[in-house]
């Protein structure tokens, strides 16, 4: 009872509004680690209390308030008793450490033990400073390419393949799993599963340069139907412009610097330097979770990306207001 | 402090003022420096084998170093142990003539080793900027060559001192310590040869 309350109290102290907290797990991996955290926390807490109590008792026991130089103590009997006490304490310490070792390894095995015959596979590539997410498929036209916003089905194992395009990044959504480094020259795989529908935030956890602070992503966990609808939507080429404004927007896109870096499938824009924008309108946030995906924020971003994310690789675009408005409207239609 | 009237004392005036061998402080300092540099070599060796695991073929797409100069140099290193040991043997006697001869002999070997090392560098069949294999290979040979040059300078300096009357006392012990360091250079040379010429053929 009391333990449970204390628990929730401590959890409250370390709490956060929802989706970015290693103590608010949303799936078996983060839950396993959370369980281990609390077990080890209480063990170390007990050790802390015992040692502090020991030092306090030792300090008050024979405390002498004089600052005169006292004669030396020679206490053989005390030494003998202390030997037993220290010996016992060391023995208990060793046993406790072995217990922690066992629990840690067993938890590690459990957390990594997830597997499935036919999982959703996501290839994550770290870029300075955004995340490329590819849902690979043997058929090229069945491959989804998106950025920063990952969709996964609830309750299904998902395998994440990692890679880096430049420096070391680290993929970390604390409510879902621990972090995994994305190393250039290495590709590795790990599994996640999310059991509660919702949006979970993640960030880059390995220092990767100027905009390490603004390298977020989100994982949207949704039920199987919604996920499949999302998949189907993402597989489509970009929406054809259906108004003069959006036609002009596409024209602006294709005739300005945008095409140097971005892809919009179904148009001539095919560069992979920056995020794929084929379905950019469907995303909640832009610039690796730096700004909300609203027309205003998008326009501000296009005009001067260096303002909110100084140092990032996108150059300012001096568009006239009409072109800018058309471009933003067009991008907004790319659902 | 206390009165010095009737205190018992430990009189050390009869002890020698120079020691050869293990109780010499410079000998110990030299051992520590060999440990430091030995660790460096060991780490480079470890890096070499680590990089080996990251490559499918070894050497990657090139032929292994040409071994003839390396083998010749290894033989030369083996024979250079003779003057090194000789210098160590004659140092305690203080006989400047013999010390001078031994040191000059050792210096001559070091020069010859260095010349052969130059030929070795031309026949490694790779460049340090080509790939990681080239980088680690050149680092190994380069680190050892640095030691060889240092040791040559030290031997020649001691040989220079041996022409003066300053070659006495701790300088004699330094001659013996210099030979210890030469042994270290020779042993690392052998290990390096095994890696540079051996493992590139059999790994």
């Amino acid at each position, binding site marked *: 009872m009391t333990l449970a309350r204390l628990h929730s109290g401590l959890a409250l102290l370390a709490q956060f509004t929802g989706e970015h907290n290693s103590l608010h797990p949303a799936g078996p991996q983060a839950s396993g680690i959370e369980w281990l955290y609390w077990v080890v926390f209480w063990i170390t807490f007990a050790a802390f209390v015992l040692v502090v109590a020991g*030092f306090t008792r030792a300090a008050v026991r024979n405390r002498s308030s004089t600052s005169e130089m006292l004669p030396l103590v020679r206490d053989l009997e005390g030494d003998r008793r202390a030997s037993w006490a220290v010996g016992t304490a060391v023995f208990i310490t060793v046993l406790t450490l072995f217990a922690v070792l066992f629990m840690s390894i067993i938890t590690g095995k459990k957390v990594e033990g997830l597997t499935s015959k036919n999982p959703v596979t996501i290839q994550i590539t770290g870029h300075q400073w955004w995340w490329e997410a590819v849902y690979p498929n043997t058929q090229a036209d069945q491959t989804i390419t998106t950025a920063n916003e990952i969709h996964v089905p609830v309750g299904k194992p998902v395998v994440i393949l990692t890679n880096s395009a430049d420096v070391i990044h680290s993929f970390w959504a604390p409510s879902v799993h621990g972090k995994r480094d994305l190393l250039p020259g290495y590709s590795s795989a790990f599994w996640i599963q999310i059991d509660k529908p919702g949006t979970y935030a993640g960030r880059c956890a390995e220092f990767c340069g100027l905009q390490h602070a603004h390298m977020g992503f989100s994982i949207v966990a949704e039920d199987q139907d919604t996920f499949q609808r999302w998949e189907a939507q993402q597989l489509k080429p970009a929406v054809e412009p259906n108004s003069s404004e959006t036609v002009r927007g596409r024209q602006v896109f294709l005739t300005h610097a945008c095409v140097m870096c971005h892809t919009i499938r179904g148009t001539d824009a095919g560069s992979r330097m920056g995020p794929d924008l084929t379905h950019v309108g469907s995303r909640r946030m832009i610039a690796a979770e730096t700004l909300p995906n609203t027309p205003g924020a998008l326009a501000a971003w296009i005009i001067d990306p260096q303002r909110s994310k100084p140092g990032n690789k996108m150059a300012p675009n001096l568009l006239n207001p009409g072109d800018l408005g058309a471009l933003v409207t067009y991008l907004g239609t790319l659902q | 402090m206390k009165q010095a009237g009737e205190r018992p004392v430990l009189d050390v005036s009869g002890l020698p003022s120079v020691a050869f061998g293990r109780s010499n402080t410079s000998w110990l300092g030299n051992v*520590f420096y060999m440990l430091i540099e030995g660790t460096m070599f060991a780490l480079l060796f470890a890096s070499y084998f680590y990089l080996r695991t990251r490559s499918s073929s070894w050497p990657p797409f090139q032929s292994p170093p040409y071994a003839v100069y390396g083998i010749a140099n290894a033989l030369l290193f083996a024979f250079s142990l003779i003057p090194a040991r000789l210098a160590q043997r004659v140092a305690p006697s203080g006989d400047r003539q013999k010390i001078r001869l031994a040191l000059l002999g050792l210096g001559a070997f070091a020069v010859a080793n260095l010349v052969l090392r130059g030929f070795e560098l031309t026949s490694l069949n790779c460049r340090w900027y080509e790939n990681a294999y080239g980088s680690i290979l050149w680092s190994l040979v380069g680190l050892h060559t640095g030691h060889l040059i240092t040791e040559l300078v030290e031997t020649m300096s001691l040989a220079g001192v041996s022409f003066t009357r300053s070659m006495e006392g701790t300088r004699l012990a330094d001659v013996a310590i210099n030979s210890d360091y030469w042994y270290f250079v020779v042993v690392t040379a052998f290990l390096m040869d095994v890696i540079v010429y051996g493992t590139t053929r059999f790994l």
Partner: protein
Amino acid sequence: MSQQVAVPESTREPILARTWRQPGGFWGWFQNVHHTAIGVRFMVTAFIFFLLGGVLAAIMRWQLATPEHGVIGPDLYNQIFTVHGSTMIFLFAVPMMFQGFGVYLVPLICGTRNIAFPRLNAFSYYVYLVGGLLLWAGLLLRTGADAGWFAYVPLSGPEFTPGKRSDFWAQMITFTEVSALGVAVSIATTILRYRAPGMTLNRMPLILWEKLVISMAVIFAMPAVMVVSYMLLMDRTINTQFFNPAVGGDVLLYQHLFWFFGHPEVYIIFLPGTAIASTVIPVFCRRHIFGYVPIVTSVVATGILGFGVWVHHMFATGLPQMSESFFTAATLMIVIPTAVQFYCWMATIWHGRLQLMLPMLWMFGFFFVFLIGGLSGVMLASVPLNWQVHDTFFVVAHFHYVLIGGALFPMFAGLYFWIPKITGRMMNTLLGKVHFWLFFAGFNITFFTMHFLGLRGMPRRVYTYGPEMHWEGLNLLASSGVLLMATGVIVFIVNFFHSKSRGRLAGPNPWGAGSLEWAVSSPPPAYNFLELPTVNGREPLWDALPNQPVVTGLRDDIPEVLVTNSLDSEPQHRDELPPASIWPFLAAIAVSVAFIWSIFSPWGVAYGAIPVAATLLGWLWPRGHSPSPRVPEEV
């Protein structure tokens, strides 16, 4: 041991003072090779770097106090945290705890007149100073290193950090490592060769054991960082390909080599703290330390086990889980020796007569703070937990608890304990207590809070964060603690300058301590000991016989010390130490020119080697004949 009547002191003292005198004046400053002077220089310089590093920390906390705070931009922030970390580790913690305390204290505690290789020791100081200035010059010119204190490749490599930023960092490493290695060789040789007769292996004061272990750890760990920083430098300057995956290079090689140095480094910083603890606690508990043998074995075991835990910095890289778990096991096992030491200290206090004077107060701060750091270390040792908290503010909290708890608290204990020896005057107790409580409170406010930030997902090394993360309250709290810590340190500085001129005179042994440095006047004379002491127990002054013998027969007219053997400290021979000299300084300058030149051109190494060789020859060139023939003898 023969019964003799010693030469009267009054006639010897001026002769010894002349023999060991170090030159004064401006040029004299660069010639001084006495260990007390060099030790104090290390301490003062390291403390100044500590203050500078602290200023950088304060700027970072100011920037992070509120979300989207615009005090400094990402570029400057990255330089600041890189220079903060590098300064605190390479320019403050090691030079202070190992070099400063070690160089000053070890010869005194051994009972000898100077450190072994005094010129190498002086050289080490200048090299360290130049390395520190180099790093800071980079920052002040706005081209400071900006890839973090461990400067992972490829971020620090030629492609992603063009310019000279990482080169400054890598060469600073070389400077400080050359310095630490030189001092390690000096200290280890002093301990193994210059101990007073009677100070056998089983009676060596614990601080000597720890300094010996640290020296060995330096000797085996520092080459790794030299190797790796040179690989980085060569990748950057002459296009080697160590870390380029496209042509067989490997980014994890860097991490392996760096942490093979980096983790022992933590123990190189922390063991001096335990050395101070094992020295201070018996004095203020008025009894010998409990558990000498277990503490010695613990210290040695820590030094060895410290080399087998480096992979726990790389748990998130995706190595096989079994490989990682070996290092979990090793990391958990290294808790045991530290626990043993804690229990032994507790038993010493328990069965002693505690006098809670200033150094002891800081010791209790050390117990409390380091304990928390050690226990959160247990969490970090676990592979799955590490996946969550690695590279977050939880880790920032953890290592500040370990390093500030394990080094800074003992450092202040040691300073309050030994400053009376160094300056000859006592520190003010009231100001000392104010310092302690301000620092202790501020520290815990700042860093305990960071545990929660880490668990709530705040990664380290971010220059800002958005309000939507809801981190602002905790960050503001963490930043506010800095004010208390800074005030505490200012109080310490005031206390130091006040006591230096007006403090109560300390006398040789104000604390009634038992080790040999307290047998000489405060500050110690140029020759340290008028008569070299002999030793009759682990606490030489406490265990001395009523008529403990002294050593005679060393010459007073040349700087001579007694060499004893390692195991039983039996007198072996007499050794003449070199006098003051300008050459170590000139050699340091030559080496610095070569190192800095090599950043800009590979030929710097070749051309720079010429003045280096010249100055080394000048350094080592014979000083003419001894006044009397010196007899070599096989011992």
